Every structure is written in structure tokens, then in C-alpha cells.
């Protein structure tokens, strides 16, 4: 079974530039999550989708971050404009559904460096 695919793996941009990350979840997984992992910290949930609807975006800095999952499959996360403190690994995860016994699988992440 193919895992959660993310691209690009690495990205370096200057502050105030824009950047977008892409995630392809495991086939058939209705629930998709974006996490931000700053160096030395645990991942922090940014947004959760159920199919193409947003379930939880309470921790998403909406003034600069946006995410969409238009067809309920792939998802993109955008940052515009980027700040130095956005340097982090952005992890995408997916699960079959929303029940507590459904396991979430994580992708390898996109490492963003803002200079």
C-alpha cells in the first residue's frame, strides 16, 4: 500500500515570498491533516479535513496560511507571505475516518527554510 506522499521534500525561500506544499493521502482515506513541526518540538495540528470540508482549523494562522482539498483527495497548504518563524517541517497525515480506532499515517514531510 502506498503511503502518504508529499512534495517537495525541501524548500528554501526568502521572507515575504509565497510557498505551496502538496499532499496526496493514502487511497480511500477521507480524513487529512496538516501539521507543523518546528525544530525541537512536537508536531502541531494546523488543519483537519474530512473529505473536502474543514473539520478543525483553530490553530491555522489564517492571515498567512491557507489550505484546500477541493476534490476530497489531494490537498495543498500555502503560506503567503512567509515569515522567518515559519521555518519548520510540514507533515501531512491521513486516516480512513474519524473514529478513535482508525490509525493516522504520516508522510515524510516538507522541510521549509525561510531566510
Amino acid at each position, binding site marked *: 500500500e502506498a503511503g502518504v506522499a508529499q512534495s517537495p521534500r525541501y524548500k528554501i525561500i526568502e521572507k515575504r515570498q509565497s510557498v505551496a506544499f502538496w499532499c496526496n493521502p493514502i487511497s480511500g482515506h477521507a*480524513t487529512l491533516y496538516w501539521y507543523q513541526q518546528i525544530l525541537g518540538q*512536537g508536531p502541531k495540528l494546523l488543519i483537519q479535513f474530512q473529505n473536502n470540508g474543514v473539520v478543525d482549523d483553530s490553530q491555522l494562522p489564517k492571515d498567512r496560511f491557507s489550505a484546500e482539498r477541493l476534490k476530497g483527495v489531494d490537498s495543498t497548504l500555502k503560506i503567503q507571505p512567509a515569515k522567518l518563524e515559519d521555518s519548520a517541517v510540514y507533515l501531512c497525515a491521513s486516516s480512513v475516518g474519524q473514529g*478513535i480506532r482508525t*490509525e493516522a499515517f504520516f508522510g515524510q514531510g516538507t522541510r521549509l527554510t525561510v531566510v
Partner: protein
Amino acid sequence: ELKVEQNPLFLSMQEGKNYTIYCNYSTTSDRLYWYRQDPGKSLESLFVLLSNGAVKQEGRLMASLDTKARLSTLHITAAVHDLSATYFCAVGRDYGGSQGNLIFGKGTKLSVKP
């Protein structure tokens, strides 16, 4: 606000020794997870603990949950070098919610030396 605290944050062990990593959380939750992360890699699920008194074991790792104390432990028995990694505990943010909707601790970086 739900907070998850792990200790220690750094752990250097000798091979063959035993040690325990602790995970405390601030409010009640219905699920707790342990993950492993190798450098530059993604998160690998180790254990899912859903009830008070739950104990799960896999190889040299054993996890337990005390929901009354809001405490989970990850015990390492006779450590080997392959266990070197960062270990995270994570707690469900809302009752009955998705496994992926979690609050993570800062992680414990484990280094096992010969």
C-alpha cells in the same frame, strides 16, 4: 487548554540498561499515542492506549496508561542501539475525535550507546 509534557527531553543510555520516559497531560482525554521519529523521517505509530490501565508491549518497549493520574509511561528494557530515535507522546484533543487530531509532547531524544 490541553498540554502534554514529556520528560526527560534528552536521554543517553547504555546498551542493556532499562529506563522509563514519562508523559503527563493536563486534562482528560480518551486516547493517548506513542510515536517514534528517526532523523529526517516521518512519524511511526508505536502504541495506541485507549483505556485506564491499558498496557501494550512490542519488543523492548512497553507503554502503559493511568488516566486518573493523566500519566503514560514508555518503558525501555535492555536498550539496544536501534532504539535510538525521538519518541513522542500525543493525546487526543477532543473526545471521540479523529486519531490524527492530537496534541504532541516535545519529544524525548533517546541515544543508546554501546
